[in-house]
């Protein structure tokens, strides 16, 4: 998951490598994802999310569609 100046720079990077563009979103949305995903990581009670739990996290943040489908 790499940072870019803009979506145009993502597209240039993908063209140069002949790879299809994946999912692009803002740092605001990434911060929401980071907080949801990692805020409890230091807790002794933390356990790795199951696929279903991870899917709920993505869905809750509006990360939907085939790209975000885990199963």
């Amino acid at each position, binding site marked *: 998951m*790499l940072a*870019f100046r*803009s979506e145009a720079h993502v597209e240039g990077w993908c063209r140069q490598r002949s790879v299809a563009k994946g999912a692009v979103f803002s740092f605001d949305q990434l911060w929401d994802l980071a907080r949801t995903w990692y805020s409890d990581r*230091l807790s002794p009670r933390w356990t790795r999310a199951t696929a279903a739990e991870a899917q709920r996290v993505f869905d809750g943040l509006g990360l939907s569609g085939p790209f975000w489908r885990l199963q």
Partner: protein
Amino acid sequence: MERDAAVRVELYRQFVGSGRAPTHAEVGEALGLGEDEAAESFRRLADAHTIVLKPGTLELWMAAPFSAVETRYRVETPLGSFYGNCAWDSLGVLAMLDTDGVVSTTCDDCGQELELRVDGSRIAGDGVVHFLVPAAHWWDDIGYT
């Protein structure tokens, strides 16, 4: 397993405290475990995708969101300096530590410096993140996502 949970917690405690990845022996010693027991626990945690070891070794590569090796995602916090594995993980360091801080990186396309600043739970910084690999395939090669 209880032991693996304790090893995981101790591993992160040492990582936060020192700013570097502890060895299995260091983690085991803190918990009163033998080196073999700590090694087995590291292997089980890696098998469960809780941590990532450098290929063919017992050395930590990733204890997400921390990277044990230098990356292009440096995270400065009042608690110390760390490296995230990627853009997501670099902000994950700040979220996990519940602290303000600054992520310094560069645009992967043009090399321009980018800064993501978290202050009072708000983020400032111009740019976007690109997830190249669909979520279902991240663990096909966790070093390339």
